[in-house]
């Protein structure tokens, strides 16, 4: 990525998401929480899920991290609301798979697609995957 491209990316996609992250607060109540922590760099978020009749009704997050991890989790939270835990597992699986794949993979969600296109971002892929990995691990190990 050239410097100009990096600036464009941040100006158009990452910084707006950062300034207005989706549901970036600690909610009063949560059915369960997931910790997303990268011990190499210190990024740490708590993800708050509310579930009702087998569907996720809301996802909030709060914590500290870089612009990329924050933007990525913000996009993730929005995309996961109203899904079933099963669909969340599939979604996070697909996202991680897309990030690890050599060839590009399409996603109907424009913002998720934007994140997936950053899979060659030197040294920063872990930032983008942070929240998604945490969700994937949680739901894979949960009894659904």
């Amino acid at each position: 990525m050239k410097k100009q491209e990096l600036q464009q990316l941040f100006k158009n996609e990452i910084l707006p998401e950062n300034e207005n992250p989706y549901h970036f607060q600690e909610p009063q109540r949560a059915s369960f929480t997931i910790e997303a922590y990268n011990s190499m760099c210190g990024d740490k978020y708590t993800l708050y899920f509310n579930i009702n009749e087998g569907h996720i009704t809301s996802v909030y997050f709060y914590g500290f991290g870089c612009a990329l991890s924050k933007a990525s989790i913000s996009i993730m939270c929005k995309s996961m609301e109203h899904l079933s835990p099963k669909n969340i597992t599939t979604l996070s699986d697909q996202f991680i798979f897309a990030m690890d794949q050599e060839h590009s993979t399409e996603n109907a969600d424009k913002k998720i697609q934007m994140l997936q296109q950053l899979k060659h971002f030197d040294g920063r892929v872990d930032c983008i995957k942070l929240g998604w990995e945490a969700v994937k691990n949680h739901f894979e190990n949960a009894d659904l």
Partner: protein
Amino acid sequence: MFDFAEKLVILKLNKNSIKKARSHFPIFEAHPNLVYLDNAATTQRAQSVVNAQSHFDLYENANIHRGIYDLSNQATQKFENARTEIARFLGSGNANTVAFTQGTTASINIVAQSFLAPRLQAGDNIVTTIMEHHANFIPWQMLAQRYQVELRLVPIDKNGDLDLVQLSKFLDKKTKLLAISHISNTLGTIHPLDEIIELAKRKDIPVLVDAAQSACHFEIGVDPLNCDFLTFSGHKMFGPFGIGILQVSEKYLADMMPHNYGGGIIKDVKVEKTSFRNFPHNLDAGTPNVSGVIGLAAALKFISGIGKSDMHSHLNKLTLYALDQLPQVPGIEIIGNPKKRIGIISFNLKNIHPHDIASFLNKDGIALRAGMHCTQPLLNAMGLQATARVSFSIYNNEEEINKLVVSLKELMRFWS
């Protein structure tokens, strides 16, 4: 007859060579515009180091200590000569105080396992500081948990200086070791080792100094520092990866037990019982990293050629210059303000995470580190999640610090 020596770059190291330091590092031929400010993580490799290593690998290679033939004898001699040279570099005439390890982390773990563990009893304590690299923290924490020993962590003040009053109080009859770094790899604080070691010595407490960040440009060694264990890594002083030093004071040489077992460390092996050689030969089980040792010896020669005191003043000058220039960047916070600091500066920019700083500066050819720098307890104590860190070496100059400042200013403008 192939004469390799003729092909070597003949390095004329004279008094002025700080000015020419950059020319000894081929990395800057490959990347002429690189502003490399991550020297606390690893320094660049000097040409003479690579030459010495590859000369051995290509033309002199044989396993040591075991052959009767010429090549093996010569390799052994070279290996043991390196030990003597390294001892001399550490101000000692006794090569038997010097053991080769894989690096600082390995050296510290060896002290934990082969010296400290056998003498710990429940109720004892180990003193270290909140500022240590994980390499000088976790080995003691693990011992403390396993042997029901108290781990005492000397706190810091808001400037990033150690609380020496508390340190003095921590040292008592039950203290089995004081383990402390010379220079903090996150804040650059130079600890007043003279004073600290004196406190421990008055109570006859053995002292380990983690010299990973100071070995290059301070007069170090168990004798000059009056400590008992000294550890450092080759790769932070222009040498190879995977080689480091553990030096032990004569007082404790006999207390260093073998910690992994195999060939090369034995006096006699019977089916019933094995007896071992003395330190340092009781540590080198298996085949050591011979070319690494030869590379390390070449690195020390390179350092001596330039002169530690010249290196020290150069780093000091750069540090002061950076501390003077960086505050021009709007929204910058320099972390800590220790009484003495050298070579390393951590900072944060308002509203910009260190990782994002590193990604943007990377586009301007500036290499710096972002994160916790393997010092989580320190960052937690200071209420920080991460920092950006610049660290200097002999090939850096003021022009590069100017570039850093320009890039940071541009980033702040872009972000806001």
